[in-house]
């Protein structure tokens, strides 16, 4: 469906706005911080508004019962030849998630991190432009370009604040991603060589009609492309760069990076279901086992990593892996009910990991460096402090926990519940949705599904143990250092992210209905492909996108 109105141009705003504002900011001196702050805040706020509008647009059902797929032909060329931007339910959802994370991490960084190095605001907005572009594009090569935009910005942001740890992490992060980009290009080139198209919808149309030689080559290309995205999504064994990099990046950036792995997951979800979904003929389900078992290996690796982590930052890094592993395994089940649960889980886990990264910095502030390592070592070897504790007991009765610590502790408990998937928060709903879909599958539950169920339960438990241990050691211990000073502008984003998770819990029903419809649309992509290629349902000639009545190009 091509809408002819000004509202149509809303689709390109999430890419253009941050790109233009980010570039314009380069013209101003670094000392005009107030101006840059204001500009970025306005940009991010408008991005959020636009994303919500697009979400509302994508969620409306057409009069003929079809889901809305907004197609924006760039340069007004018809779809398989020109490049299109596409907003459907999934991309709109990801846009909102990006905007929410962008707004909260930017707000947090305004407290002090944005002063830690040059060009923070430009890089941050370029990252948002790249992310939005990757979610919006309907073209494989354009996807590569937006990936490079977001990666280039992320290279700069990982190094933001400088320091040996960050440079060392960057020295691993950047080559790994450059190699992934090479694989991306090889995959795209093979797919283009076989099918002669780069348009995702056109690809979905062509896949069932490939002959056997072409299919082998196409699947090779898709597999190479898949590896590139799995590196980004952090599937085991392609994920060793991730915890170190995330732990090295400064807090707001690490929090923003919570969505970077989800870009890889998003592309896999989209391309896998488009090219190898239910309508792909002989290619249907290609690679599903790899995603399924790879995802489970990632969950297991992440779970062990969570238990073994001595610092909270690494714990959060491994939680990222658990989250991507869970979603990848869910995609591998090729069951739309499981995928809809996974989408819900994607949103809530991204929000909670992001909040956790922000929270860690506040908790760590004012603690001795290396206190975590010391705490875990003491736990392992039995600590010699039991005598002191008894002596101190009477003195400490009635000593209130400082308000700041209580606040941070409350947020920590919420994060624990979210990450471990405990009731009453939304992490639980996501997990239950996936588990119940796995259990209610027609026929008896296969062994491999039992394995996934067990793994999800066990990692939830592992996360709970690790978080509880860390929480007791950091929040309940008599504090050696000073009580951290937390500014409202730092607490507000964490509160907002957690409040969103609570909202998702309360509005669980409508949210799950949205996810169900999204998964349906993903799983049966003819509607998506038909809308993009402009092929009318009756099989008439493809519609050329006509000029707007106002004479706009």
């Amino acid at each position, binding site marked *: 469906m091509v809408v002819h109105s000004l509202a149509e141009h809303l689709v390109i705003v999430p890419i253009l706005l941050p790109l233009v504002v980010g570039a314009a900011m380069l013209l101003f001196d670094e000392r005009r911080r107030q101006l840059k702050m204001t500009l970025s805040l306005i940009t991010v706020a408008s991005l959020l508004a636009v994303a919500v509008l697009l979400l509302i647009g994508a969620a409306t059902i057409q009069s003929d019962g079809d889901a809305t797929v907004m197609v924006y032909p760039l340069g007004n060329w018809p779809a398989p030849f020109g490049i299109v931007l596409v907003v459907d339910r999934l991309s709109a959802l990801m846009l909102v998630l990006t905007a929410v994370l962008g707004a909260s991490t930017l707000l947090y960084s305004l407290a002090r991190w944005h002063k830690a190095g040059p060009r923070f605001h430009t890089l941050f907005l370029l990252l948002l432009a790249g992310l939005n572009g990757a979610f919006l594009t309907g073209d494989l*090569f354009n996807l*590569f*370009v937006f990936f*490079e935009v977001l990666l*280039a910005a992320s*290279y700069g942001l990982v*190094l933001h604040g*400088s*320091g*040996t740890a960050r*440079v*060392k992490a*960057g*020295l*691993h992060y*950047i*080559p790994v991603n*450059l*190699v992934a*980009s*090479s694989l991306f*290009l*090889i995959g*795209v*080139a*093979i797919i*283009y*060589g076989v099918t002669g198209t*780069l348009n995702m919808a056109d690809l979905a149309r062509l896949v069932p009609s490939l002959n056997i030689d072409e299919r082998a080559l196409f699947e090779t290309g898709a597999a190479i492309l898949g590896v590139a995205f799995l590196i980004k999504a952090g599937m085991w064994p392609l994920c060793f760069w991730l915890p170190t990099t995330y732990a090295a990046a400064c807090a707001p950036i690490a929090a923003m990076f919570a969505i970077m792995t989800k870009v890889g997951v998003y592309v896999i979800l989209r391309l896998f279901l488009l090219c190898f979904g239910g309508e792909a003929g002989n290619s249907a389900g290609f690679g599903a086992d790899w995603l399924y078992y790879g995802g489970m290996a990632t969950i297991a690796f992440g779970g062990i990593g969570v238990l073994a982590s001595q610092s909270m930052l690494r714990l959060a890094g491994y939680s990222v892996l658990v989250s991507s592993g869970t979603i990848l395994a869910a995609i591998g089940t090729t069951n739309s009910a499981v995928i809809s649960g996974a989408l819900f889980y994607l949103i809530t886990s991204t929000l909670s990991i992001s909040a956790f990264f922000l929270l860690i910095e506040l908790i760590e502030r004012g603690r001795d460096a290396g206190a975590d390592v010391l705490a875990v070592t003491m736990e392992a070897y039995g600590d010699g402090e039991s005598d002191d504790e008894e002596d101190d007991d009477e003195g400490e009765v009635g000593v209130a926990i400082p308000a700041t610590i209580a606040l941070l502790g409350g947020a920590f408990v919420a994060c624990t519940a979210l990450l471990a998937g405990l009731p009453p928060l939304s992490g639980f709903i996501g997990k239950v949705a996936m588990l119940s879909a796995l259990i209610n599958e027609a026929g008896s539950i296969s062994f491999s599904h039992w394995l996934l169920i067990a793994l999800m339960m066990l990692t939830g438990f592992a996360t709970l143990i690790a978080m509880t241990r860390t929480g007791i050691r950091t929040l309940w211990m008599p504090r050696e250092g000073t009580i951290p000073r937390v500014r409202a502008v730092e607490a507000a984003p964490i509160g907002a992210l957690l409040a969103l998770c609570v909202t998702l819990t309360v509005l669980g029903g409508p949210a799950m209905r949205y996810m169900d419809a999204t998964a349906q649309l993903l799983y049966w992509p003819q509607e998506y492909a038909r809308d993009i290629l402009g092929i009318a349902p009756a099989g008439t000639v493809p519609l050329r996108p006509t000029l707007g009545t106002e004479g706009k190009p």
Partner: protein
Amino acid sequence: MEMVLAIGIGVFAGSGVWLLLRPRTYQVIIGLSLLSYAVNLFIFSMGRLKIGAPPILSVPGVGDPATMADPTPQALVLTAIVIGFAMTALFLVLLLAARGLTGTDHVNGRED
């Protein structure tokens, strides 16, 4: 011609991967560059090899696609070259920063 191109891509990719796995940052960056040359040639070859065929219409109007080279891979290669060049430059800066901060050119930031 196909043979020459295939061997060329193979040599570039092979040496690129070997250098990429070496412990010195300079070797890594050269490896990345060679790998990107291989990838660029590969994309180019995916438009099928043709001699003396321009990727544009010589006379305005409808031309015969059989006498033309596929313009899309050429456009893709151009983009990939630009992006690859920018990324190499960026990595070079990081490499120098790492050399300055850690005092070694080992990729792990310390001699092992």
